[in-house]
């Protein structure tokens, strides 16, 4: 078995039923986290969202502004109504174009652009959800040599999203929430060494 690559970015995508899981994950993250974390959650448009505040229980989670630099130890939440893309200089580009998979932010777009920039150094995690956003993005992460993980559909409140990703990607790993936490804590130590 080859050693896992050192990750340079963690992306987490989720939709219906993923809030509670996300909160659990965040609460078990080492603080500060050794690499930048980007969270892409589907939400309603034109409703004032306080998701960043809701999630900022143990660590500060912020909606980035356009052109912000991705930094280790920071957790970024894709802003409501914008797609979040990553540029080659590891800055964030926001995009207000058409919805993708009925969503903006779309998980596929962030995953795909991270794969193009960070290649094998991307870890993508897809949680519960009721549509198939994220499946194509995870394919791109895996094709670039990165790692794709989904929440085990059996443990997800809505299994469509993780199941679509499994169907599209033989290389994806399905894990329970506990296993994901374990995995993340391991990479966090590896990245420090």
């Amino acid at each position, binding site marked *: 078995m080859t050693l896992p690559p050192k990750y340079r970015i963690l992306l987490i995508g989720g939709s219906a039923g993923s809030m509670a899981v996300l909160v659990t994950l965040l609460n078990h993250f080492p603080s500060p986290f050794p690499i930048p974390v980007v969270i892409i959650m589907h939400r309603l448009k*034109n409703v*004032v969202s306080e998701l960043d505040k809701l999630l900022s229980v143990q660590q500060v989670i912020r*909606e*980035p*502004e*356009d*052109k*912000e630099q991705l930094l280790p130890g920071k957790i970024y939440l894709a*802003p409501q109504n*914008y797609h979040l*893309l*990553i*540029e*080659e200089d590891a800055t964030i*580009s*926001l*995009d*207000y*174009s*058409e919805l993708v998979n009925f969503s903006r932010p779309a998980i596929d*777009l962030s995953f795909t*652009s991270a794969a*193009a*920039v960070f290649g094998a150094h991307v870890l993508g995690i897809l949680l519960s959800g009721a549509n198939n956003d994220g499946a194509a993005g995870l394919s*791109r992460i895996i094709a670039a040599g990165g790692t794709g993980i989904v929440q085990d559909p059996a443990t997800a409140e809505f299994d469509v999203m993780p199941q679509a990703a499994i169907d599209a990607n033989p290389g994806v790993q399905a894990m329970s929430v506990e296993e994901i936490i374990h995995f993340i804590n391991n990479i966090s130590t590896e990245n420090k060494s």
Partner: protein
Amino acid sequence: MVEGISNSDFTDLVKIIQQRYGYDFTNYAVASLKRRFIRFMAYKHINGIFELKHRLLNETHFFQEMVQYITVNVTEMFRDPSFYKALREQVLPRLASYPNIKIWHAGCASGEEVYSMAILLEEAGLMDRCRIYATDMNAANLKKAEEGKVTLKEMKDYTYNYIQSGGLHDFSGYYTAYADHVIIQPALKRNIIFFQHNLVTDQVFNEFQLICCRNVFIYFNKTLQERVVKLFYESLTSLGYLALGLKESLLYNEERVKFEPVNAANKIFRRKT
């Protein structure tokens, strides 16, 4: 289907477009523009970069279709209601002190935000001493904007936005509804001028008390943002207002020291002197 574009192919495409058609995308944000190219190729069933280059070089009308497709023209009426509320409460009362008010909507796309502004001005009783210059680089957008035609299914969202922005009238009074679209009341257009202007290549053309340029910057890299903020600075009167999109920042811009925030959360700034 093409899944990615190499940097050298990307540079070639941008060069072809610039030399052949005069549109300069050199300093656009790369990630987003690459995606727009790929999306256009999927739409036209083009299977490789070679074919795309070939058609760009040989078919003029092909580019017209491409520019419409690769530029982002998504907009809404009263997009971000909190911003419009801030305009009503903090900016319009100041503008009211000028005998003639000039406003520039830069990158207005199909005009939904221009008409939102017109409604605000009408309700503040300022419309008759106001002139709105609505510009876009894309002629097709301007044509659509001038028609004042909006899809009917969006009107529910827009009505909600209007009320959230502090609108006190019956929103349906501002348009006439047809089977699948509405037409904005032509009276709202009486002081709006639509014309083509490209922020990348064109210059200062007038002096304004307020410039709105919302969700345009995000498609530019820092170099181009710098140029455009300079252009805006030079186009503003002393103490004139600049409004950007909610997630757009002056932080990475040298010109930022010449502006002060009026409403930081809603990205309304003012020229200092």
